[in-house]
């Protein structure tokens, strides 16, 4: 007696997410509205753990997911909901679920897709912490990952097994400046009946919207460019609403009655928002990595200037990459925004407004020169983060990749001579002077 052919429904509704408003309007207004009770125009910080029920019947409806409303801040919070709607709108998606960090977004999203024994095919060019999470920690859940070089598109298809539940990649990878061919990966994933998941942290939706190239799920470390000010941790899971979870029997947590909700079937009940709702109602509920409302407030406030910051980040980064590429102390620069870079063509396709502001370069002087460089800079901060208003620098070989052998460091793109920069939004001439002085000392 229930509607059939949900797949047709999902694909027909895909175009519907597109907003009549421009990006700069959405980043300010999407998800926000004046507080109906007080008239407060800025989003209030709802610093509360729980919410009073109207009556016993309303409480039951909320617990059954029959009504929209708040129960407990581990599940939903009105401040966090503004962040979620803003990210969903900017990514041109159906819905989003915010969590405590980018790592939590990966744990929650994969928890909704995977069973013990299942498999992920992932790009090998991921943030180092993600390689450890997928490659080492996920193994303890009996979830297995095959890493494939993103330059080897066919390698992704070859690595898929009947147990594979997703293809995973970063749109713009950290730190290597590698640009993934999202459209090609989407085709491979969809042929196998599995979703393509893209970590869009380094690009942000201002530079790249992976869903428009076929990605089904987008993840963010909102700690980076979305928040943008290096002051709050957060992560977001974005559901395009386009994937048909009922097309095969690979995703029983979505397409079959859920024992965690007395036999409710998420795909049938929530249609094109099923994944986002299930991430919240099952994985976030039961794993528990909720974002604090205060952090959500800081991040959504930062997002109101996302496009302004990204334009400055990219302009500064390109000017600095060009300066470095001509400097006598520099061996090489890996920035997809540079003409002649091996990823320049892919960057033109997927990131036409700019290739981001995180990239690496090589010092002719090697390990000791790297140490001297990070000790000499005065504006750049030597720390392990990216996507801040402030310019940041790290020498991976002596810090984040210190435990590896020289051969392993080289393979990870963290050789002795490598410096990673995250270019901020300061005056570019000051940044260039700071770098020039440190290069001449190195």
């Amino acid at each position, binding site marked *: *007696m*229930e*509607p*059939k*052919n*949900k797949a*047709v*429904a999902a694909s*027909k*509704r895909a*175009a*519907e*997410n597109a*907003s*009549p*408003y421009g990006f700069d*309007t959405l980043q300010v*207004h*999407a*998800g926000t*509205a*004046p*507080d*109906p009770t007080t*008239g407060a125009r800025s989003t209030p910080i709802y610093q509360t753990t729980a919410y009073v029920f109207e009556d016993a019947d*309303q409480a039951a*409806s909320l617990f*059954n*997911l*029959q*009504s*929209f*409303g*708040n129960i407990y801040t581990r599940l*939903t919070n*009105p401040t966090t*909901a*503004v962040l*979620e*709607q803003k990210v*969903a*709108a900017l990514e041109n*998606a*159906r*819905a*989003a*679920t*915010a969590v405590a960090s980018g790592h939590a977004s990966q744990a929650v999203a994969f928890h909704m897709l995977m069973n013990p024994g299942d498999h992920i095919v992932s790009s090998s060019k991921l943030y180092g912490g993600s390689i450890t999470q997928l490659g080492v920690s996920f193994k303890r859940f009996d979830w297995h990952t095959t890493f494939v070089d993103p330059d080897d598109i066919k390698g992704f298809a070859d690595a898929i097994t009947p147990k594979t539940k997703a293809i995973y990649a970063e749109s713009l990878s950290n730190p290597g400046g590698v640009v993934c061919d999202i459209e090609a990966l989407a085709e491979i994933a969809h042929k196998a009946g599995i979703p393509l998941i893209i970590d869009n942290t380094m690009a942000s939706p201002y530079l790249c919207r992976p869903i428009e190239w076929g990605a089904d799920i987008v993840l963010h470390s909102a700690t980076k460019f979305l928040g943008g000010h290096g002051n709050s941790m957060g992560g977001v899971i974005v559901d395009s609403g386009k994937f048909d979870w009922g097309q095969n029997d690979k995703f029983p947590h979505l397409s079959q*009655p859920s024992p965690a*909700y*007395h*036999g*409710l079937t998420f795909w*049938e*009940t929530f*249609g094109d*928002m099923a994944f*986002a*709702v299930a991430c*919240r109602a099952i994985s976030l509920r039961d794993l528990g990595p909720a974002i604090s409302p205060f952090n959500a407030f800081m991040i959504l406030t930062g997002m109101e200037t996302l496009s302004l910051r990204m334009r400055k980040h990219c302009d500064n980064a390109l000017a600095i990459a060009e300066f470095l590429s001509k400097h006598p102390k520099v061996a090489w620069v890996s920035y997809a925004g540079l003409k002649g870079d091996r990823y320049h063509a892919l960057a033109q396709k997927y990131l036409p407004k700019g290739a981001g502001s995180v990239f690496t370069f090589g010092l002719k002087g090697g390990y000791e020169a790297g140490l001297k460089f990070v000790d000499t800079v005065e504006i750049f901060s030597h720390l392990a983060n990216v996507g801040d208003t402030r310019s940041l620098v790290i020498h991976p070989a002596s810090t984040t990749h210190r435990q590896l052998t020289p051969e392993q460091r080289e393979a990870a793109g963290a050789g002795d001579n490598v410096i990673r920069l995250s270019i901020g939004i300061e005056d570019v001439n000051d940044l260039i002077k700071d770098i020039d002085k440190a290069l001449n000392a190195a």
Partner: protein
Amino acid sequence: MTTATLEKIDHENYSDDYIRSILRKVNVIAMVGASANWNRPSYFAMKYLQQKGYRVIPVNPKEAGKEILGERAYAALTDIPVKVDMVDCFRASEAIPPIAEDAIKIGAKVLWMQLGVRNDEAARKAEAAGLQVVMNRCPKIEYGRLSQEIGWMGVNTRVINSKRQRRI
């Protein structure tokens, strides 16, 4: 520049104004395929619409004469003794034509087909008889979206609002 004729409805992309006008004007909804089982989507939708002030009358031959959520269920639309404004169909697309005929017969103003349900032929006939038609949508989701309530679940409502009032 305005015309007196009915606007041609694009059934791929309904405007917010079109959906809003329907949800504002209807009071009594007949829900064809309403289930008595609490974890079925139709039960969710019926309960939500009742909370928003609509009267929802279940139509389901298996439940005829029994009550669902406090409302007596009927075997067919033509058995309902009160005036029905909108017919909401929780049935497969191919089952829609006779429901559409009954909707016309009982003088309903709106024929609504749920998410995943679409029958263009039935829609054309209903529109020719003066009914407004919505296909492949859920009134609960649309009400929640336009009132921005569904935003509490992180759903992109596509609504921008600088007013204190939340209304559909």
